């Protein structure tokens, strides 16, 4: 019987690959900010954003070493909060565009934002729970 809420996830080692891709994307972004790049600016930005989104997605949907139902509930809780966070981000950006200055919105940035909120929240919850139950 299938008792998993989320039935499909990448194997655990994809988390390390995702982390590596994200670090590469972050380094490229820092390089872009502080130095001149030979690539055309908009192309470089798109490449960087997509690379970061792929890396974060890999981290987000990789299994934990022991992926049980409690972990999956944490995933759902974190996903729900990240969805609300994403909604607030959209409202803030729309309001800013309407009243202050038109902002060129990117869907990839929105996805990166949601994935970041999800990953940070999920890992924080996991850390707090494991800390609590490892002490006793």
């Amino acid at each position, binding site marked *: *019987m299938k*008792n998993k809420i989320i039935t499909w996830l990448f194997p655990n080692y994809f988390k390390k690959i995702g982390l590596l891709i994200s670090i590469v994307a972050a380094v490229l972004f820092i390089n872009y900010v502080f130095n001149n790049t030979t690539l055309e600016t908009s192309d470089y930005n798109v490449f960087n954003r997509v690379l970061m989104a792929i890396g974060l997605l890999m981290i987000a949907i990789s299994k934990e070493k*022991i992926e*049980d*139902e*409690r*972990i999956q509930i944490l995933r759902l809780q974190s996903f729900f909060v990240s969805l609300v966070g994403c909604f607030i981000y959209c409202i803030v950006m729309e309001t800013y565009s309407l009243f202050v200055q038109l902002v060129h919105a990117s869907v990839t940035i929105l996805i990166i934002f949601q994935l970041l909120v999800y990953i940070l929240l999920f890992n924080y919850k996991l850390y707090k*729970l*494991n800390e609590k*139950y*490892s002490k*006793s």
Partner: protein
Amino acid sequence: MRNTVKVERAKKDMTQAQLAEKIGVSRQTIHAIETQDYFPSVVLALKMAKLFGVTVNDIFELEKAD
């Protein structure tokens, strides 16, 4: 919901880690169930009952507040 997982585990002389390994969850999850911070799914409850050789009703009991 009250449970007697800790008692049943002690009867079988099992550690949390051993029980966790047998039913395919983490040790922290067993601890969370024993301290009643987490209520397991029906499948997990049935797995535990089968392992302890009792019924689910023997392990889990509803409280008045439930």
